[in-house]
C-alpha cells in the first residue's frame, strides 16, 4: 500500500473522478454530482472544502484557454542563476503579475538554466519586455526566451482512471 492509498479512500477517489468531469451547468451542480456518488449535497461540498484545505485541490473555479482570451504569445524564459541566489530570485520573479509560473529545475549537460518562468502576453515584444524587467529586477543576465509556436496538446489530467 503506498502513501496515497493510506490517505485517499476509495470513496475519495470516486469523488475525484466525478469532479474531474467538471461542474454541470444546472441550478444545483453539487446536488447533481452528489446523487451519482450516492452522497448528500452537503457531504460533497464539505469534502470539496476539505480537499481545498489540505491542498489536494489547488484552485476551485474555471480553467480558461488563454489563447482564446487574446494572450496569444507565450514564452518560457529560462535563467541561469547562481545556486545560492535561486530562492531569492524565484521569489522576486514570482511577484510579477505577468509571470504565471516560476520553478527551480535541475541543470543538465548542455543546459545551464535552473530557473524557469512562463510569461503570457499579447505579443512577443511584450514578453521580451517583461523578461528585460525581470532581468533588471534580479540582476540575472544569462537567460533565454523560448517562444511557443504551436500548442501540440493541452488537456486536464484524469486521475485514478
Amino acid at each position: 500500500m503506498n502513501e496515497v492509498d493510506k490517505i485517499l479512500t476509495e470513496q475519495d477517489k470516486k469523488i475525484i473522478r466525478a469532479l474531474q468531469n467538471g461542474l454541470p451547468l444546472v441550478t444545483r451542480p453539487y446536488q447533481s454530482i452528489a446523487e451519482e456518488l450516492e452522497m448528500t449535497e452537503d457531504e460533497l461540498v464539505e469534502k470539496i472544502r476539505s480537499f481545498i484545505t489540505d491542498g489536494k485541490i489547488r484552485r476551485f473555479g474555471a480553467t480558461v484557454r488563454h489563447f482564446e482570451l487574446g494572450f496569444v504569445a507565450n514564452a518560457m524564459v529560462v535563467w541561469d542563476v547562481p545556486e545560492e541566489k535561486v530562492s531569492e530570485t524565484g521569489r522576486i520573479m514570482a511577484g510579477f503579475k505577468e509571470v504565471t509560473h516560476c520553478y527551480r529545475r535541475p541543470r543538465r549537460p548542455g543546459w545551464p538554466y535552473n530557473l524557469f518562468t512562463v510569461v503570457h502576453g499579447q505579443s512577443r515584444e511584450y514578453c521580451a519586455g517583461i523578461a528585460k524587467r525581470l532581468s533588471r529586477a534580479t540582476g540575472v543576465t544569462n537567460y533565454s526566451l523560448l517562444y511557443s509556436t504551436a500548442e501540440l496538446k493541452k488537456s486536464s489530467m484524469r486521475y485514478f482512471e
Partner: protein
Amino acid sequence: MRLDKIDRKLLNLVQEKFPLLSEPYRKLGEIIGISEGEVLARLKQMQDEGVIRRLGAVFESRKLGYSGTLCAMRVEPDRVDEVAAIINSFPGVTHNYLREHQINIWFTVLAGSEDELGEILNLMREKTGIREIMELPAEEVFKIKVNFSLS
C-alpha cells in the same frame, strides 16, 4: 469570441471565487446583477466557444500521490508531427508545446508513481527512437498561477 463587459466580469469571478453553495450560478448572478439563467447561458457559450476549458476543481497532482516532470526533446523539424503524436498518445501527457529552440518539444507528464513515470519515458524513447529526453522535474515551486485577469 468577442467578450463583453459582463462576460469579462463573470470570467474573472468564476476563475477566482467559484461559490461552494447549493446554487452557485444564482449567487454569481446576484454578485454581477444578472439572472441565474443569464449566467448559465453566458457560461455555456464560453464553454462552447472554448474560452472556458472546465469548471470546477484543479487538483494538485503531488498531493494525490502522482509524480510528474517537464521533459524536453530535440526533434528534427520533419519529424515533429509524428513524434508529437507518439508523445501525446500517453494520457499522462497534459501539455505539449513546440518552441523555437534547438530543443523544440516541451511537454509535461504525470504518472501514478516514479517507477511508472520512468516506464513511460522509456516507452517514449523506444517508440520515437530518440534516446535523449531531458527530464526537468520541479525542485522548488515559486508560483503556479492559472488565473488570467481581464480588464
